[in-house]
């Protein structure tokens, strides 16, 4: 199940993911790339975490913790080679934090790499969260993965200027 914003109440609600459309035509393949695969099936998939804080008063402390962790966090995100970007976006009332990212590959396959390299940072940040999974994250990786998946808010759609490129391909092409 995914979470989405109820437009009437602005609450987070559980919704069933939309069924994949039936494919009756042969896949369009160009240079080995299946153009019929949506972005969210293979590359630049969306992870839109919306997590409630224990108290809106703690939002600044949480943001400060993120700021302090930035050097390590950014280094490790870069070294993993599958995160396109990551934004930390608080609700204006401080009640929730949104972590908005795009990543390549399969979430469940790679999220454990997060645990390996920045599990301690996640543990610290989840200490501010109202419905956090069991902590520390390194000792409860399965629960952490389930938490992330259950707090991933689905989106209406996505547009990308380079829809079929991965982080590694972009960095390799640009020499980054």
């Amino acid at each position: 199940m995914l979470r989405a914003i109820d437009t009437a109440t602005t609450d987070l609600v559980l919704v069933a993911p939309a069924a994949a459309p039936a494919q009756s035509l042969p896949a369009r393949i160009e240079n080995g790339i299946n153009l019929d695969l949506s972005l969210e099936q293979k590359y630049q998939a969306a992870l839109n975490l919306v997590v409630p804080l224990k108290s809106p008063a703690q939002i600044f402390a949480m943001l400060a913790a993120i700021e302090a962790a930035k050097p390590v966090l950014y280094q490790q995100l870069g070294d993993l080679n599958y995160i396109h970007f990551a934004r930390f976006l608080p609700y204006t009332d401080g009640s929730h934090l949104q972590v908005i990212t795009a990543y390549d590959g399969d979430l469940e396959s790679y999220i454990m790499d997060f645990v390996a390299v920045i599990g301690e940072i996640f543990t610290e940040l989840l200490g501010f969260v109202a419905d956090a999974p069991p902590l520390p994250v390194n000792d409860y990786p399965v629960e952490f993965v389930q938490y992330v998946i259950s707090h991933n808010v689905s989106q209406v759609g996505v547009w990308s200027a380079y829809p079929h490129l991965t982080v590694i391909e972009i960095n390799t092409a640009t020499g980054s």
Partner: protein
Amino acid sequence: MPLDLSDIQANVLRGYGAAFARHFALALPTAAAGAALLGALINGDGECPQVSDAKVWSDKPSYCLNVGITADGLGALGVPAATVGAFPAAFRSGSAARSSLPTTGPDDVGLGDVGDSAPAAWILGGTASPTVHLLISLYTHHEKALETRSAQLRTVFGATGVHELSSHDAVAQPGGTVHFGYRDGIAQPWIDGTPGQRLDDVQPSVPTGDFLLGSGYTNRYKGNFIGAIPRTLGDNGTYSAFRLLRQDVTGFEEFLAKAAARWRQDPEVIAAKLMGRWRNGAPLALSPDGPNPTPPITEAQINAYDFVATPEHPAFHDDDFGARCPIGAHTRRLNPRGALVMGQPNSRRIIRRGMPYGPPFDPDHPDDVERGLVGHFICGDIESQFEFIMKGWVNQDIQTAGLRGTRDPILGAQPEHGGRFVISLGPNRDPMILDNLPRLVHTRGSLYLFLPGIGALRRLAAVTTEEAS
């Protein structure tokens, strides 16, 4: 944490190096039968082979014996459902179910067990084959010992009422080669705490917890894979994907010949590019021009390489473009070492204990006799190691740049119209593109097994008839 070698099954930390193997797939009619069999294997009274542990030996034992249990087998042994429920989902589901999971679309073949490799066609562990509870793996140096020990095991099977569903034999080939002609089993992960001297291998050693369960060990995620499994059952255990894989050797040799003719290359060059090593094991990264360089590559050097220069080894040749070893070569796909890849480098290791089955292939007299590879692929977590490798590195194309539209040339589930393999010739030259690559390895059977520690086996053997009922 020091390893209790007496509690770890043999053939995990270090390979036994057998000439013969026989794997017995068993069904347990009752928990008491299973307990009786395990008791006989634990005690080993001279008339029954004993399960082997990892203690260091000075004289190599005449046989090695491993015991693996499926999730169904744990239940059949009387392990409470709640305890079985503590095991990871992949193990509990079993290999056939995991290979049958829905995929995201026509481009996604999951673990690659599709078409004639789908579980419906498996002769072991499949949806149409009998449920396997235990797999006993017997390894010997001599054929006579294999038959003697097999007879002893079958006597115990009969005495305990355990049903032998099937047996699967393997025979080592000269030089440690497998049916495609390559020397196999060269690069194995070195697990922290393993006794003995490690051969030079520039890859870092692997955290113990990546291969052994137990609350004292740490895996690469700084946790451990034992989870909620009781320590009395989980400590010093590990998991295995036991695979029975048919190799299309005729198709392989035909492909080599056609590709070589098309590109005016020696077929051995094509073979080396597909694998990432020459058939004698010399890595392309160290020996790009031939299998026998001057000076020769010693056994100590055969794994002392990377695909890129690293901070630890700045003098290594930087082959990031794949001009020496293609980026899509089998050994580079399945073990990228320090090369650029999604996720952590030098991770997702797996221990391979496979041996050839079927008669040696004679290229001068090709035949249709079935031959292939059978054995254990051992890891601490089936989903994040074995399945990740099969799904992400073998059958997908985005783990690094330069793989689009391709799957692993040796193991991959190639499309029906044939797969593609790209051989880079350098940054300013058009690559060689080999098309019509057929599927070369077909799955004939698969089991997900738990290999318990010796103490856990002893406790499982202590289940009484009353407890089992």
